């Protein structure tokens, strides 16, 4: 009886999966940074799987490094070992994965980097980067903030605090760099009085903001590496009854969008994980199809503020 059931299952599986396997043209492996740590990454994973499922030519092996660079390198090796057709990598560390990426290239497997780019030394070993331009995002956030200060007429005296993302994380570094580079260009008299990391974590950002509020009597603007932290900072300001602070973030989250609608949060950068995931998959497919893919394949991440938010749908994450 048991053997029979097993046999039936086996036959059924072969019948069902055999043809599917045979038809699949491309097997694409992806190793992500840290799914489940925030909604962006979770939505990204879901969108990626959906997009892969929708495409009958693609079979996806979806892995998650859990934020651990050693595990990610192991996963790249696993994918090489499984001889996939292409590898998409969301680097946990933009430099540490370069040798692993080189191994993939040496094995004849094209690599596409997604979301957060690897360092320049590795550019020789990848086919394309697909994702947002985080430096530009940082610059745009600076512009949003500066424009608002100009509207308010405080561009010569305003004081800003800066809550960055996870230390060491490329996205965090690039956004912070873009912001701090651009702000003096557009608003030379605005002073960034303090910078502390909020680790992409709303609660941590809230604590950091609480300390800022105690420490500085005059805070006119807060720039956070993403909306998740921005909302944490907003909560702190609300609890301390400090009104009139301009909050600008990046990666517009649903909570940030709502806060904007409520008039409490000024602006952000609209970046859709669904676009991000689809772009990555499409880039990989294009590479495999032999099409000409731009090396830096940025998808657009526009400014969103209270003024123009009606042009955007509310983010799903």
């Amino acid at each position, binding site marked *: 009886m048991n053997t029979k059931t097993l046999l039936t299952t086996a036959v059924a599986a072969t019948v069902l999966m055999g043809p599917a396997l045979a038809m699949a043209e491309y097997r694409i492996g992806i190793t992500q940074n840290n799914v489940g*740590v925030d909604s962006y990454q979770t939505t990204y994973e879901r969108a990626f799987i959906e997009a892969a499922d929708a495409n009958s030519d693609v079979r996806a092996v979806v892995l998650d490094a859990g934020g651990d660079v050693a595990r990610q390198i192991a996963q790249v090796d696993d994918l090489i070992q499984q001889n996939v057709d292409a590898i998409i990598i969301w680097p946990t560390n933009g430099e540490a994965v370069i040798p692993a990426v080189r191994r993939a290239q040496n094995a004849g497997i094209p690599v596409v980097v997604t979301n957060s780019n690897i360092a320049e030394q590795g550019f020789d070993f990848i086919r394309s980067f697909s994702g947002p331009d985080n430096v530009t995002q940082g610059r745009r956030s600076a512009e949003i903030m500066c424009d608002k200060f100009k509207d308010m007429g405080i561009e010569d005296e305003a004081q800003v605090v800066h809550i960055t993302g996870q230390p060491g994380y490329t996205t965090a570094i690039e956004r912070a760099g873009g912001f701090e580079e651009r702000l003096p260009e557009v608003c030379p008299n605005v002073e960034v009085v303090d910078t*502390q990391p909020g680790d992409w974590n709303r609660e941590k950002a809230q604590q950091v903001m609480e300390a800022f509020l105690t420490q500085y009597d005059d805070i006119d603007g807060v720039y956070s590496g993403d909306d998740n932290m921005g909302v944490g900072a907003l909560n702190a300001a609300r609890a301390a009854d400090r009104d009139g602070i301009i909050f600008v973030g990046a990666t517009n989250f649903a909570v940030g969008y709502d806060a904007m609608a409520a008039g409490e949060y000024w602006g952000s950068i609209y970046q859709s994980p669904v676009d991000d995931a689809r772009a990555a998959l499409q880039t990989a497919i294009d590479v495999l199809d032999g099409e000409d893919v731009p090396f830096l394949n940025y998808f657009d991440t526009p400014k969103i503020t209270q003024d123009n938010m009606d042009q955007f749908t509310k983010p799903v994450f």
Partner: protein
Amino acid sequence: MANIASKQVLTVLGKQGILIAFVLFMVIFSLANSNFLSLDNLQSVIRSSAILGVMALGVTFVVISGNLDLSVGSMMSFSTIVVLDLHDKLGPNLAIPTMYLMTLGLGGFIGYLVGYLRLNSLIVTLGMLSAIHGLTLTYSGGQNMDIADKSNTWFGFFGRGEIFGLPVPIILFILLAAFLGVLLAKTPFGRKVYAVGGNPTAAAFSGIPRARTVFTCYLISAFCVATAGLIQASRSMGSQNTVGQGLELEVLAAVILGGASLLGGSGTIFKTVIGILILGFIQNGLLLMGWPFYVQFVITWIIIILAVWLDISVKRGKLWVSN
């Protein structure tokens, strides 16, 4: 003569060392930054320590009973995510008790493994740290949980509300600390916790049920974690799956700083509260002085070791171990 005097100094330091350190830090920080002792700041520190503090109260019971609980961080994430999710599905009236029941279920499971099956608490809670994180991710599908309509619920009361100008988290922390402090110091149950942690064999020979006592300690810990999750959820009205990650070690650090021995049988709620406040004020003080957050790591390291060292050198009557 000098020897006796130094011994007395050691004894005083050992008994009141934590308090002395506490006062010392307060003085240094308030000299360094005039805002430090402002009422606003004090309130803000206690409020932000409240979540960690509430968890530490429960862990104090577990540690005194001679065990460890490394799962409180991921359990707190679980409570937070669950109550936020259920808030929109069931409404706050049902969501809160349901979340408490589910968290107590997890605590009960750990208590069963450690109490009744007598499995090693370090490994069990280490395993549960990972397992509960997986459970949370499965529950939420990895998505952040947010209350859809934040302005139209009384749920924010636990994290944002105030009674007579005092923030509710602080009130909850104080009430729970008072209640658990009395439970530990003044009731038969508290006595049993000390006995089971101090000498489990002698406790068994005195007719004290070790299994049930340990089980109850984990239930208390889970109750505290659920409360912490409630405050957290209510305060931010939305959360990531990893909100409590790493808190287990901070909590443990506070409990140890308060002088509870990991061998069990010693420690008090009051001392744990002091431990929590020290950690909170160090964090806040350094932030106010504009020092990077990681300096706090190094200082916490030094303080923990000094505190425990002082404590045990008083017991053995000398500073250094020779053998």
